């Protein structure tokens, strides 16, 4: 009897968050899906009509679409590569006994707390500016011509900025995982005659495997939607050279006023994100059974 | 007063019948120990009595009153948990005082009771500390103190000593037994350790797979186990079981002989064995022997007997202390 009461109470306690998230998930998504089949332009809102798959076709045949998909993949892939490899290396370094470990940790974690617009502006002006940036100063110091990063390598520049923001995250998580590695295991491996490389390959890396998976998946979720960094640096240009899918949808919707087209792009983005989400959920879900 | 009666009590978790049906009578002032291997349902049974789990069927009576539907707090019982379950954010004083505060007792009365309990349990100097600043044994005593101050009709202990080291366990065993003599309150104690059961209990309830195998005083169970399970579970080292020709000659499927009931000799006896391992405890020595035609046998002998690995030893079972079991594993009467 008492147990039954508890169950009812538990349901009641859960209702607000479940209902809110249900609405939050269903209403906008349903609207996006609906709009994606409509010819709907914000400049001409009285003239809305059903167009079937036209918006998808429009998006699909737009060369910018493929470029944006490619750019999205480059940003996600490039940032993951830098942050995971860099993160492992830095985590291994921080796991050593060093003087001032606390301060070093604080310095390394800091970029994660910098809001994206600030990060992007600092890099754009202070570091990568072709005339006054630190990179330009370094180039001139070596007698080289400074590079105009955002004009010549717009996508690469964005990858660098975003990687700088996410490197601390990867490092911190991998360091946490590293520190949970049983010291006796390491000692046992040393007794068994494993050198540093052996220990890394056979002991450390397998131990880190799940954390690496988690880092990759969580970062992917966020990296698919990189937005502010592009907005304040290249604004997607030159041309579409640094426009990712998220930015293309924003352009279509709020600069092109094309609600239908943007919605079709949104649905495509949902599908992409779901593929990643599927794997992330499995990785996190396993942890719940522990 | 604190008699507890279980009538056809059963517990089902989903598909699993953890306790099929149990009848048990615990009289006032008794120290009853539920003992059995892990997963035998002993903790579940305790939690059913406590009211922390709802029974699936049957009735629980405390002092003759049906409490099957009562909330834990209404049953007038106190429990000491395996992890002690102390409130980490409260001082020792507040931990012990908590049940009294819940009972809305007056502050001066609470203070007096807490002080008394602390004195009994040697906690007076630690009253202002947090549980995290105490040793395992001290935490254990705080948990007991929290139980004592309520003056419950019965104490429930759920494997209270399993987180302590061996030496402390021995001390706490004595302290709990001593407490029982002082308070003369019913205590129900769950353990998987038959030594705890033997040393502390007035009455042992041996459980296996949710069923009661036997109920009796420690010496009853030791002298006349009802079946193979009880025979093997009670006593340390375990009873030797011998099948085959020897058992048949005694008109049994299985013969059981405790290690301490084997007469050892270096030159004559009905069994001849080779010492595999000799464990010298000082006063006693346990010999693990390979016996011709019988198999592995454990024998207990005097510490001065002087047998070592590889020695040949002869042994003769004490016929009067022999246990005989039929093909269903039940004990045969002498």
């Amino acid at each position, binding site marked *: 009897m008492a147990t039954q009461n508890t169950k009812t109470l538990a349901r009641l306690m859960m209702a607000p968050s479940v209902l809110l*998230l249900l609405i939050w998930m269903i209403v906008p998504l349903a609207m996006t899906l609906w709009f994606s089949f409509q010819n709907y332009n914000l400049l001409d809102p009285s003239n809305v009509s059903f167009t079937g798959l036209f918006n998808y076709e429009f998006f699909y045949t737009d060369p910018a679409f493929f470029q944006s998909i490619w750019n999205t993949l480059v940003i996600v892939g490039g940032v993951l590569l830098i942050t995971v490899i860099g993160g492992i290396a830095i985590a291994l370094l921080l796991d050593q006994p060093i*003087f001032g470990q606390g301060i070093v940790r604080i*310095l390394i974690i800091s970029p994660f707390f910098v809001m994206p617009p600030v990060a992007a502006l*600092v890099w754009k002006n202070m570091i990568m500016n072709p005339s006054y940036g630190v990179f330009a100063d370094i180039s001139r110091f070596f007698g080289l011509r400074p590079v105009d990063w955002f004009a010549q390598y717009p996508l690469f520049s964005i990858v660098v900025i975003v990687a700088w923001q996410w490197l601390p995250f990867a490092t911190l998580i991998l360091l*946490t995982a590293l520190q949970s590695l049983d010291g006796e295991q390491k000692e046992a491996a040393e007794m068994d005659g494993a050198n540093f490389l052996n220990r890394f390959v056979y002991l450390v890396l397998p131990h880190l495997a799940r954390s690496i998976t988690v880092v990759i998946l*969580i970062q992917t979720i966020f990296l698919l939607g990189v*937005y*502010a960094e592009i907005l304040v640096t290249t604004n997607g240009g030159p041309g579409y050279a640094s426009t990712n899918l998220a930015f293309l949808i924003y352009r279509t919707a709020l600069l092109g006023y094309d609600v239908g087209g943007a919605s079709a792009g949104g649905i495509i983005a949902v599908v992409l994100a779901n593929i990643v989400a599927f794997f992330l959920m499995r990785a996190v879900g396993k942890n719940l059974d522990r | 007063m604190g008699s507890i009666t279980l009538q056809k009590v059963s517990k089902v978790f989903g598909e699993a019948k953890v306790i099929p049906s149990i009848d048990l009578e615990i009289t006032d002032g008794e120290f009853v120990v539920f003992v059995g291997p892990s997963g035998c349902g002993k903790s579940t049974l305790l939690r059913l009595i406590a009211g922390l789990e709802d029974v699936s069927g049957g009735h629980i009576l405390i002092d003759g009153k049906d409490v099957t539907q009562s909330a834990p*707090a209404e049953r007038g019982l106190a429990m000491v948990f395996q992890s002690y379950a102390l409130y980490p954010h409260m001082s020792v004083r507040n931990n012990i005082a*908590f049940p009294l505060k819940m009972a809305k007792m007056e502050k001066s009365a609470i203070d007096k009771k807490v002080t008394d309990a602390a004195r009994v349990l040697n906690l007076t100097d630690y009253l202002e500390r947090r549980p995290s600043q105490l040793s395992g044994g001290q935490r254990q005593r705080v948990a007991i103190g929290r139980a004592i101050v309520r003056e419950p009709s019965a104490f429930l202990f759920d494997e209270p000593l399993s987180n302590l080291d061996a030496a402390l366990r021995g001390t706490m065993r004595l302290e709990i037994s001593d407490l029982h003599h002082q308070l003369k309150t019913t205590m129900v104690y769950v353990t998987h350790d038959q030594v705890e059961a033997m040393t502390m209990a007035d009455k042992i309830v041996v459980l296996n797979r949710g069923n009661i195998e036997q109920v009796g005083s420690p010496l009853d169970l030791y002298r006349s186990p009802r079946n193979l399970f009880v025979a093997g579970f009670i006593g340390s080292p375990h009873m030797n079981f011998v099948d085959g020709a020897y058992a048949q000659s005694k008109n049994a499927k299985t013969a059981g002989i405790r290690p301490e009931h084997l007469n050892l000799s270096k030159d004559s006896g009905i069994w001849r064995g080779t010492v595999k391992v000799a464990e010298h405890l000082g006063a006693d020595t346990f010999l693990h022997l390979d016996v011709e035609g019988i198999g592995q046998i454990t024998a207990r002998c005097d510490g001065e007997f002087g047998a070592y690995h590889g020695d040949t030893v002869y042994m003769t079972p004490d016929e009067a202390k022999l246990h005989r079991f039929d093909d269903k594993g039940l004990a045969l009467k002498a």
Partner: protein
Amino acid sequence: MARNVTTKHKITATVAAWIVALIIFFPILYTIITSIKTEPEAIAGFSLWPSGTFENYITVQTQRDYLKPFMNSVILSVGSTILALIIAIPSAWAMAFSPTKRTKDILMWMLSTKMMPAVAVLVPIYLLFRDFGLLDSRIGLTVMLTLINLPIVVWMLYTYFREIPGEILEAARMDGAGLWQEIVYVLTPMAVPGIASTLLLNIILAWNESFWTIRLSTTNAAPLTAFIASFSSPQGLFWAKLSAASTMAIAPILILGWFSQKQLVRGLTFGAVK
């Protein structure tokens, strides 16, 4: 042998770690340094020695009214976090203490709402906000930030609550505590550290959220993210001021963040890494 670390090894590792740390921290450091340079100094080439003026901070306030977006950031991040906690605490509580067979599914589903790309619902949200008059309103943005962080808040609280041992609740029940007393005297004191960590991390996340805050605000409700993003358009001689504004925008959260390193890992990995 290996535990007896040689001093040489430690010094090598220290030097390497400090170099890496300083390189990673450099953009932030340089921003802080530039913020106390004069404008001509700021573009006069690499220098780590500023003249030490606080002119820029004053100018950012007087010319751009810095305090307004700052207050918006505080209101939005704290407001949305408290709102999310109020909604999330009961449900995390229920899931941790009376779990059912579907608890896990519900948790996973909540997590999945976090996976939805924001940009996919930009159009409907924008239109809904427009139609309800919520564009550039603090209420609208607070609700928005509450919703997008709600799953993380529920998850974090759940992982903290789940660590409160069930035996303690049972002990409280045996001791005669009713549900209300159980909550006030036992659960709440034990849950407070977890709630505080969740609060901290969520304020950080809300403070830095840079999609909805930029898109759904213009001036009145614009927090620091939108304020800073507005600096992107005009190029020119305003770097010292930009640095001052940036420093002020990140300083509070940087300090909060330093205190929440541990919880950060746990919160952002949904308890998968601790």
